[in-house]
């Protein structure tokens, strides 16, 4: 069990206890977290699951693949150095994840 903290652009935060091995995108979609669409279901072909990952958690994940990097350029909200596609961020036992949701995915 680990927790994902979803911070909306308006400052509202939602905390979800997720299942290890599932992605930050799936966890959001299953729990009705606004602002993460995940239209392609994690196939890296929609860029509607864009999030900003907490700076101090960047190293907890391997760097974006070439395909993720490509798709990040397609996101509706301009990417930042801490941008990730949340379908690629998998929950792991004991490490919480903090993400900020961009103002628009579409």
């Amino acid at each position: 069990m680990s927790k994902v903290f979803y911070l909306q652009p308006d400052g509202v935060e939602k905390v979800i206890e997720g299942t290890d091995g599932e992605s930050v995108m799936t966890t959001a979609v299953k729990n009705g977290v606004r602002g993460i669409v995940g239209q392609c279901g994690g196939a890296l072909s929609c860029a509607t699951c864009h999030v900003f990952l907490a700076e101090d958690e960047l190293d907890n994940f391997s760097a974006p693949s070439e395909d993720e990097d490509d798709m990040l350029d397609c996101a509706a909200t301009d990417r930042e150095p801490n941008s990730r596609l949340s379908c690629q961020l998998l929950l792991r036992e004991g490490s919480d994840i903090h993400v900020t949701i961009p103002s628009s995915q579409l």
Partner: protein
Amino acid sequence: MTTIDQPLADTAYPFLPVEPSEAARRYAAICADRPMTKMTMPIGGDAWIIHRNSTARAMLGDPRFVREPFRTGERTVPYFMEFPEFLKSTIQFEDPPHHTKLRRLVQKSISPKRVRGMRDSAVKFANELIDEMVAKGSPSNLVEDYSIALPIQMLANLLGVPPEDRPKFESWSASTLSVANMAPEQIAANMGELVQYMTALIEERRREPREDLLSDLANARDKDDTLTDAEIIPIALILIIGGFDNTANFIGQGVLSLFNNQDQLAVLLEDVDTVAPTAVEEILRHAAWEIGNPVAGMGALVPFVATEDVDLEGQLVAKGEAIMIDPNGANHDAIAMAEPATFDVRRADNPHLTLSFGLHHCLGAPLARMELQVAITELFRRLPGLRQDGPVVINYDNLTQPITSLPVAW
């Protein structure tokens, strides 16, 4: 003991057209009862039809369901009608890895970012159309004057059709529209000319690329692979056919469903800019149920085949079985959403599957959403007193049952 206020809904599927409220009751009962039903299709034998939203998502996100046997002709597509040959050659029927290559290349060119860049020109064009309507004076046929014109212009823009060729492009493309109701030979002739025109345009863009989708595709390189014309043309066609007919229909249905739900129209008018995005999702989910027609328990998106035995939420789908989702069910599943029968323009949690989901989700989804948002926002911002001014005409002969005339006044 449970109290039963209403008689239990009939859970038989498929079902003949009934009042939308009754259809909603039945879909809710069916979804509560089971994730899917096996039925014999009018064409192509037996297939599973998924009702539940969560089951639909699980299937659409599972790579063990593929479309290859349909593409290769190894199997007839089980469906409600014959599937047109040319559709089988499109990206919809490809599976990974070839699908992945096509999909990514196209997706980048029609990405949320690219579409955001097109928004201003959509707003401008919508306003030009409204100016023309106002200049002509009411009443006006919204379908002709607005809902068809906007998507066709956006598509021409996206593909990179030069302004001087727009009239030709429009008439070829419009022949595929369900509202045009043309004879199949006429459509084929128009498509032939359209393909020829596109082929020449692709050649031109290969030599002199510009900032448009055809240039992107013509010059796309995926590692060391380029796209051939035979790959690009079907992509352009599916965008034209899938994109603009559907978008035009959704604009018409959306406006009519707002007219039919004056309380919801009032909610939208209070703050058009803020409400439009959720209103558009609700239109995608449910507007077809609010235009005054009965609803049948039937219909589905393009099918898949299971490559091995798969357990989907408790139902075994055996290797080789065909499976598809009925978006009507998934969009009215009371397990996945509150009060599915209610048209709620502020619905916050709206997991509809009208644009599908997963690997094969609608390629043009960002564009369609943007166009619908702009169409609804600008129309009601400029003409807040817009009202229906005469009977609507719906073409029941066509599968998509498009609205061909929606008289409006303001």
